[in-house]
């Protein structure tokens, strides 16, 4: 590598430039300069053989040496094996096949009725628990591009509580969602003799490798019927607070493109009498992806079973009203290739498995399925200089829609405030608010956070303060559109703006943003393109009111003027005119405050 013309950024090393022809010619040239061999016949049989053999060997060596040199650096490496090894050094586990998965929307009839509508049999009642077992396959009746039938599976067990708060019975029907993953299930059995270097190397199939944090599992490993836990790395979930914390394994895709179940001495390795059962999916990768509503009851449910645990009866297929995937499947990929690994490992090298910044906490919290949004803050945010706040970390969470197990619920009566004017008087005026953390959830949350907790950090779960918003909205509709259609889409778009996937703690709620969001026709939801938004001629937001459930000031509707005392919610700038209260200023909400919309309290007007 003494070619000075080469750039230091030359990342395709030709470490040794010598092939068969060069080596042969060089050797002959050198021999010719020798007194002994200068007049030798280089085309004699033995001489030719020896020269060609040596040149062949030199060529072989050059190839190997160049290959090795090239694969020393991640940037220039081109052999999967070495790219994989280099990625591991950075703390990145390359991925194998990943199956597509989708959520299934299922609606069941609770009763079997005769033609007159009389109940003949009750299959589901309020308070019942339904069970969908893990590892149930379902042939969806479609074939892949290579004409193989596509199967989706449950890979997790789902318990559905039929209750007013979780999955209520509405019109004699109950609806719920769960996930299914593409693949053909395999069950493999092993003993300790198959464990070598604490690994079981699996058959050479294209298994679904799954994605962290494994919320939709891709593999189950049982040791003597006890299910072990899949971890991202062997120091994951390592904590004195975790029960059964050492029954863990990794599912890896190794540098020889083999799948392996890996155990670790520092945790636990199955013993000599143990039977290890592995359930996993042979994946079609991208060929297993499906569009929305591809899965449908008529296709066939076959032996797929939904079981009523409470009544100890299976739910007959004819009770299934709806069984479909409302959205297209997500993921469904081939194993990462060399270039994928290079990119992913570069991104991953800076990732940390400890909670230091507010973002660390937020991402860690939001990795839970029962947390939609999380927030963390500390002394600097709430009271800089107060030594009592040293080393304390406050965290708060809100759950996704439909999950109410985090908090002890309560309501606020909107009649005591001024939110009395609503479009539809029949709608409830009570708004649900969290009253306190459910202590089981709170402890579970702290145990969850503990493995990433920094020394001498004191994590305090704080009840989220919900800042409820309402508006008066004036709409002028274009001549060719119907007002009520347009109003409905404006209303739905407003609801979408406050969707929990889009909103965050400690946000600035700008009314210009809401205005633009509603009118931006490129912002659509998977199941709604808000077509009638086009009919809005002009849109006016006014009469904003907020209500913050736990302000405790006696004036829960207050929005503070800009201040340095961390009094939230507050306007981000002063009103221009001290005589007029400009309510449409941007509002900043606090670190423990989360914005929600009370759509029932919003009023819609025809704007003239």
């Amino acid at each position: 590598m003494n070619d000075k013309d080469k750039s230091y950024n030359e990342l395709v090393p030709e470490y040794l430039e010598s092939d068969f022809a060069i080596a042969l010619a060089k050797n002959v040239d050198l021999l010719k300069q020798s007194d002994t061999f200068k007049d030798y016949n280089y085309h004699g049989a033995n001489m030719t053989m020896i020269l060609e053999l040596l040149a062949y060997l030199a060529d072989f060596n050059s190839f190997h040496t160049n290959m090795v040199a090239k694969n020393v650096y991640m940037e220039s490496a081109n052999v999967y094996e070495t790219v994989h090894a280099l990625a591991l050094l950075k703390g990145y586990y390359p991925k194998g096949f990943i199956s597509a998965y989708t959520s299934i929307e299922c609606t069941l009839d609770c009763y079997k009725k005769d033609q007159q509508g009389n109940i003949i049999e009750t299959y589901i009642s309020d308070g019942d628990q339904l069970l969908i077992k893990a590892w149930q396959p379902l042939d969806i009746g479609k074939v892949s591009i290579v004409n193989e039938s596509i199967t989706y599976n449950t890979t997790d067990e789902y318990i559905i509580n039929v209750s007013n708060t979780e999955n209520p019975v509405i019109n004699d029907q109950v609806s719920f969602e769960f996930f299914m993953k593409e693949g053909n299930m395999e069950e493999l059995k092993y003993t300790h003799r198959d464990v070598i270097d604490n690994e079981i190397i699996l058959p050479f199939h294209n298994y679904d490798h799954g994605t962290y944090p494994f919320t939709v599992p891709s593999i189950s490993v049982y040791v003597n019927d006890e299910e072990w836990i899949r971890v991202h790395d062997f120091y994951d979930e390592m904590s004195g607070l975790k029960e059964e914390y050492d029954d863990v394994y990794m599912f890896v895709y190794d540098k020889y493109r083999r799948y392996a179940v890996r155990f670790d001495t520092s945790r636990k390795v199955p013993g000599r009498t143990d039977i290890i059962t592995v359930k996993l999916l042979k994946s079609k990768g991208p060929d297993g992806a499906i569009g929305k509503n591809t899965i449908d009851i008529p296709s066939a449910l076959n032996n797929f079973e939904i079981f009523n645990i409470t009544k100890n009866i299976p739910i007959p297929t004819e009770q299934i009203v709806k069984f479909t995937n409302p959205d297209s499947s997500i993921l469904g990929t081939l194993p990462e290739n060399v270039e994928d690994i290079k990119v992913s490992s570069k991104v991953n090298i800076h990732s940390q498995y400890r909670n230091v910044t507010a973002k660390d906490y937020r991402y860690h919290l939001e990795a839970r399925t029962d947390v939609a949004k999380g927030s963390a803050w500390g002394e600097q945010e709430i009271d800089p200089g107060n030594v009592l706040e040293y080393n304390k970390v406050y965290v708060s969470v809100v759950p996704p829609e439909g999950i109410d197990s985090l908090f002890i619920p309560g309501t606020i009566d909107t009649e005591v405030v001024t939110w009395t004017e609503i479009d539809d008087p029949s709608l409830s005026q009570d708004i649900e608010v969290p009253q306190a953390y459910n202590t089981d959830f709170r402890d579970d949350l702290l145990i969850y956070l503990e493995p990433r907790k920094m020394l001498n950090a004191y994590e305090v779960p704080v009840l989220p303060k919900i800042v409820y918003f309402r508006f008066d909205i004036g709409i002028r509709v274009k001549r060719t559109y119907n007002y009520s259609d347009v109003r409905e889409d404006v209303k739905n778009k407003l609801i979408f703006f406050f969707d929990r996937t889009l909103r965050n703690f400690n946000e600035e709620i700008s009314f210009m943003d809401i205005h633009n969001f509603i009118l931006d026709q490129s912002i659509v939801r998977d199941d709604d393109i808000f077509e009638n938004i086009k009919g809005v001629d002009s849109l006016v937001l006014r009469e904003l009111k907020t209500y913050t459930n736990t302000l405790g000031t006696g004036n829960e509707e207050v929005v503070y003027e800009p201040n340095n005392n961390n009094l939230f919610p507050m306007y981000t700038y002063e009103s221009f005119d001290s005589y007029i209260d400009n309510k449409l200023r941007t509002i900043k909400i606090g670190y423990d405050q989360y914005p929600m919309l009370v759509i029932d309290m919003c009023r819609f007007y025809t704007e003239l």
Partner: protein
Amino acid sequence: MQGRFSDSPYFMIRDFFDEIRKTKHNNLPEIDYNWEVTFVSTFTDAISAGSVEYKEGNWSLTDGDSNDIVYTDFATNIYNILYHFNPNEQHAYNSYIVSPFVNINTHGNGIVNLYVKEPDEGYIPISIKHLNTKGDRFNFSTTAGRTLVPGDTIVETLSGASYYFGIYNTNIHNGFSTYFNNNRETYWRKDSLFHAWLIKYAQQYYLDKWGIKIDIRNYVNYDKIFLLFHRIFKSHDEKTCRIIFYGMKNFVMDAIPEHQRTPRFKEFMDIFFDELYQEHHNQIKDIWHLLDAMMTAFEYLGYLSKFYDMFDVDQFDIKELQLREFVRDMIWILKRKGTYTDYFVLWRILTDTINRLNIYERWHTKSIDGWPNWPASIDPQDISTWPNYPYYSDTNGTTNVPESEWYDTNYILKPEYHHPPVSGGAGPVYYQDNYPCSLETYESSNMLLSTHYIVEIDVNNEPMDNDAVLSKKTWDNISSYWEYLRPVNRVSHYRIVLAPITKFSCEFVPLYHNLRDKTAFVQSKCEYYYPLVTGAYIHKQDIPSNEWIVHHNLGGNVHVQVFDDMFNEMIPSDIVFDSNSVLRVLFDNETTGFALIKVADSTDLQSPIVDIWNIVNTLNNEKLIINFEEDHQKSYEGSLELISPAESMATFSETSIHRRNVTSEGNFVFFQNTPSTEWDVVHNLGTNGVLMNVYDMNNQRMNPSEFELVDTEKMKLYFDSPQDGYVVLLRVGNFNFDNFDFGDVTIRLYEHIGDMADGVPPIYTTHADWVLETEDAYYIQRTIPQEETFTFNEIAIYHENGELIFYTKCSDVYNPRDVMLTLHYRIEKTT
């Protein structure tokens, strides 16, 4: 062209098969054995033959001939075992070791386990028997082998697909199956006999053969899980198969024109490329494996650790596989730097212990000195500023701790505490209800969390080292790594907790119950209050019963005296001597209390059986305790008179009963010269458990109406009418352990076992921080501040009157200068 090269040179495979065939003794009968070696990594622990397991240490490989070997040779000579292993007189001479890591197959005569790589299935295990080697062809018999077949359905599955790999002895298919095809790559797995031969024997083999010491690892990377042998081909009848080697030498030969491949030239090239150049070729290939902790040569593992600027792996005293895993996963430690988890990870990996690790944060209140001008100086050794769980209360170590706040009962009341999971970090969930700043009150608690934390090593479930409770090496190792990962703005403190356990018994009580082959110990006993004199036993009956079963193990000749819980003597309905070790105390009603049992100094059988028994007293003493037994039951009947030091006389109403006396010399005699209904007997024997006989001034035995044991120095006798006379007392021990006043306890630590007895001065002397009494136990505690480094092997606890109360001897406990040592002595209120 045969694709890629075999991972091993040809000559090593050839020589391996030559070697294993040397163990064949055809003149001896074959015996079909398959002994399983239960220990994967060392081949030394155990062998099972059928259902019988032969563990190292409980048998030896001797059958009486001159080639006897003992089990210690077991690990070093895998071939000899088969000549000499002789369980149940069934010799295994005609045998081969298939793999010392997996099993010993004594039937195979050269059977090897291999793995065929079938693209659609995976690595399919086969066992085949080597027949001969012809050039590059290794020929095998399949009839003695077997294969384990994927596709044998064991469990019905929903998809119908299931595989059952590796379940040996359940689905053995003699001969070959059709489950793999010809021309498939065939591999040695890392647990094969070939690997064992390469790792343990090949170097010596070539030293003997060539006189050159070669580095086998340079020729073949035996750290890979699978080594390519090469492709396998079955014969038509599937009774034989062959594996055709293809390596560097074959590649080179392919480059030579066919007409020039003369035998001599071929041999010349084979030697060069197979035996010499293979080393270079393998090392070039192996460069990539230098990055892989699981496959790099072991001696290079440290470079990977240094790649992360992490630890010097030479310091680790753990097995190779664990060390490789540790280095492989170092990046994940780095990504958790500064967390409790990292402390926990290092603790688990570096010590492999079941002991607890506790990490506490330090909290302060506003009331600390200097407030609000904090930081004022706070002595980090002031234990009152630390939360303390589970060893003592959180009330600053005062002695008046309500029992409800006392958590150390875990040690005594919950035997499973000896087998806890190792514990991790701090935080309110860990502390449950006793965290200094509870989640409910954090806003109003005025508690300030400091940057200080304490790492507490509890050495009370097992020793940290094989031969030491805690060695300097272990401490230096773990503490240096912890410090390596400590955040710069955090302040660490370290504490070791040693909590010897004992009771009021002269017998040593061990601290450890789960030694896992470790030899270190901590043993403690009581020395002071004569809790039990030699040959004595106190039975405490806590559960009301009308039949107390007393396992005293003192032999047949014993005194027995029974008391209720208020220390008044009770006359049971019967005391039955069932055996030399067990007696039963019978009552008409269920009751609780104590029984004092003491071996008698002498005994005699009555003969002939008459109503008056003149007893010859061999003890020749006047201070006597005499009791009688009738038909193996204690007798409370009859009268007794001490006639002289040599003679006594007993009178009974029944004449047809076989009797026996048990007699002992008393320790103390109290005379009541003035007739009284109440005798205050001050005996100063130091025990409240005493046996007694009461006599009048005429040496006639009499029975008081009541009998009360007041304390360790005093007792009381009550009579219905004023009596004079004397009482003979015999010390048994204490059965009341309440309200002992230990005074200002002194603790002395000695450097060597025996120093205390030899009068060698202690290396450290201090006073207890506090002594606490609970319903079940006493606790004596001292946290020794960070002052000096020493190692101790003896602990002596002294009463303030200078008498030795408790004594502990133990393996080395290393107490570094910068570490607090908490001695937490636990004394159960029992014998």
